[in-house]
């Protein structure tokens, strides 16, 4: 349990390679790592891709990264709050997706492109 407890601190993540800290099972920090990676990927994708739909999917990735973290913590804390949270997050994500698709359609109708950089009339 001690290693899991240590996992609360990010600094421990870095020290995960220490032999003593190697746990036989997949621990909290693994999940957290995946979550962080997913989040980072989402961010990077959002910043680099120009297609509005892909950008939206990247934000969804970031949402789901948070979801993974929540589930992992929920498991770690042995309560269900995190899991409940995730369900709500999924709902919201769905709502956002609906909104996003509507918007995308609207935009595509007007300019026939989904390149985000086409929309830069407002500036300064």
């Amino acid at each position, binding site marked *: 349990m001690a290693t899991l407890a240590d996992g609360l601190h990010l600094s421990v993540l870095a020290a995960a390679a220490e032999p003593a800290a190697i746990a036989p099972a997949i621990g909290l920090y693994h999940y957290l790592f995946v979550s962080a990676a997913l989040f980072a990927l989402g*961010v990077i994708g959002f*910043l680099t891709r120009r297609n509005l739909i892909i950008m939206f999917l990247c934000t969804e990735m970031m949402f789901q990264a948070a979801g993974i973290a929540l589930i992992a913590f929920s498991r770690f804390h042995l309560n269900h709050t995190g899991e409940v949270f995730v369900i709500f997050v999924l709902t919201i994500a769905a709502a956002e997706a609906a909104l996003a698709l509507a918007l995308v359609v609207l935009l595509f109708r007007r300019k026939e492109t989904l390149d985000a950089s086409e929309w830069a009339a*407002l*500036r300064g």
Partner: protein
Amino acid sequence: MTGLMGGWATLAAAGGGAAAHAAPGIPAPGAGSPIALLLLGLPLLAAALCGVFAATGNRSKLPAFTSVAALGACFGIALMLFLNWNGQPATARAFDWISLDWGAGKGQSFDAHFGVYIDGLTLLWMLFVTGLATVIALYSMEYMSHDVGLGYCRYFAAFNLFVFSMTALVMGDNLLMLFLGWEGVGLCSYLLIGYYYKRAAAVAAAKKAFIMNRIGDLGLLMGILSTFVVFGTIEYAPLFQMIASGKTASGAELASHWSVWGIPLMFAVGAFGKSAQFIFYTWLPDAMEGPTPVSALIHAATMVTAGVFLIGRLYPLFTADPALIALSVVAWAGVITALWAATIEMAIFDIKRVMGYSTISQLGFMFAGMGLLTPTGAAFHTFTHAFFKATLFLGVGAVMHGFGGQLDLRRLSGVMWMRGFGLVGIAMLVGSINLSGVPFTAGFFSKDVILAQAFTTPGTMIWGAQAAAWLLLLTAGMTAYYTFRTFLRVYVGPREFVPGDDAELLDLGRHPKGVSLDEWHAQHGHGHGHGHGHDDHGHGSDHRAAVRPDFDPTTEEFDPHPPGWSMKAAIGLCMVLSILAAGVYFMKPAVGNHGGWVAGMVGQSSAAFASPGEHHGGAAEHAAKLGTFLGYDPHKVMYYVSAGVGLIGILIAAFLHGPRGVWSLFIGNRTSAAVAPRADALANLFGPLTRAARNKYYVDEIYDALVRTPLRVLAHIFHILDQGLVDGLVNLCGALPRMLARSLRPSQSGVLQGYAVGMAAGLGLILIVVWVLMLR
């Protein structure tokens, strides 16, 4: 030192003499007659009336009549005060002016009242100030008649205001009142010098006079403030008592206190400024731009003697210093001024400026007198000088008036012999012999007192007293020379002249009385009227060609314009007074037994001081070794010596400038006009020196280069700095947001990803900051 302290005669206690050092000083003043306050009120009233006349558009000589009446009444009051005076100082108060209180203790209140302090010095000054003012107002009545109307009112308003200020200066019962008068006379001098305000030279001269005076005034102001701080009062009566007690208000021994030399030096600076002493004197010659009666009254007789008065007024303080530092400075300033001015006079040709420099020189004598421990001599010389210099100025004014403003002594000759100018000539002669110190004239006696004392006063008391005395003697001779140089060239000799620039105006423009020149111009079609003609008549030399192209001022067509009755009366009065002034020397002094009436008056005033060598019977002062004139008692021989020096000066003048030997002096000879006086050859001999003297030794230029130009440059630099640096910094601060905005604006590119990058980068930076903080 004890001798000096004891030297203050305590004249109220009768029998001047043995009073000596234990004397309690000047007694507490009695209550003066409130009538004395009228001396302040009447001129002010007259000035106000003149203002009213101006406002109502009066075009008569009413302002002049009003002024003469008011000033005459003032003289009457002064006379009455004098006659009713019991020899004790007295004060009378009108109302509080500036008075503050900040505690109950000593020196914790400041009082300056509108009040008068009457003692001998005051009365002496008031008598000649009001007397001369009346006479000169009378003279001005005619002299200024060309400008009847607004200008006339302006002139007399300023004139009356001047008398008021002079009265305040002389009679005020505290130093601030004196300062009021001091600045007031400066103002009136400014207004009157700049009377012909359309002429740039007059305006510049006026400005210069005021500013130079202000420099001195700073010294005076500092003196006043120091006096207050040290003595806790600026009212004369308690001040003198405290000085006499030999202690400052905080109980320190006065003789060893810094203030005993420091404060007098500050006052001396003030006095130098007002009285045009060395390094400050340059404004006075320029002040001759004013109307001549003004020069006579203000710049010869009265205002410029204010410095003498100030030193006399504060003589107790000046003499409290055992080392007499301030008086030495005063003495030497006077000597240098006298000599310096005399050399200039010998070279220049403008007769009015000669008079101006001569005034400076004579003021130098007065200061030397004060400095060399004869306040009596200084006061006496002031008194006599007032009359004879006024006479001389009025005479010069008559010539200017008559000859179209001609002032060059090379272009005037034999004036005395011309119709209507006889009296002027005689007056000039009287004035000149007075100035030259011809025996038995008033000027002779008064100068003699100073010279005698100068030789008597030991060098142990006044630094270099003997050298000063010799220099003064030399100056006396030079005075005689330059006086007669002018007289001989202008008033006697062949009748010849070149009219001045204003000739045409006077000749043709006998404009009806009561019409101002402006209107006269308007009638003659010169509506734009920006003349810058010469001097008094300040208009329209330019018009000559336009009006009469063939006009030649040198032809006989020009008719010298003799003075009228009021000018003549004034000149005559002045002349008589300057002769009579000699008489007071023989009057029995009210105090002491030596020096005549003036000595008595001075003796009954703050300037009372037993000069070294004066025998009052006390023995203490003889401890100091007195100076001698080549081993003789100066008091005894000086009559002869100074008379001799004066005569030598006159003879040289006659030799150099007299057209045909001594006898031709008094015979108008029309044939010799073209003969260059021998002096010219001599002048050429001195070459550069003469040229330098003619240019006033370039002092104005030096001041310009040393003070005015650097200041002006500095001012420009400041101005540029102010706009560039000080305001520039402000503007920079104002522009900073804009500059910042320019650099930030690209971040608002309008591109979605750009914004996202910004947000992510911001988050990243914040996380790094937090990380660092957490690790710390």
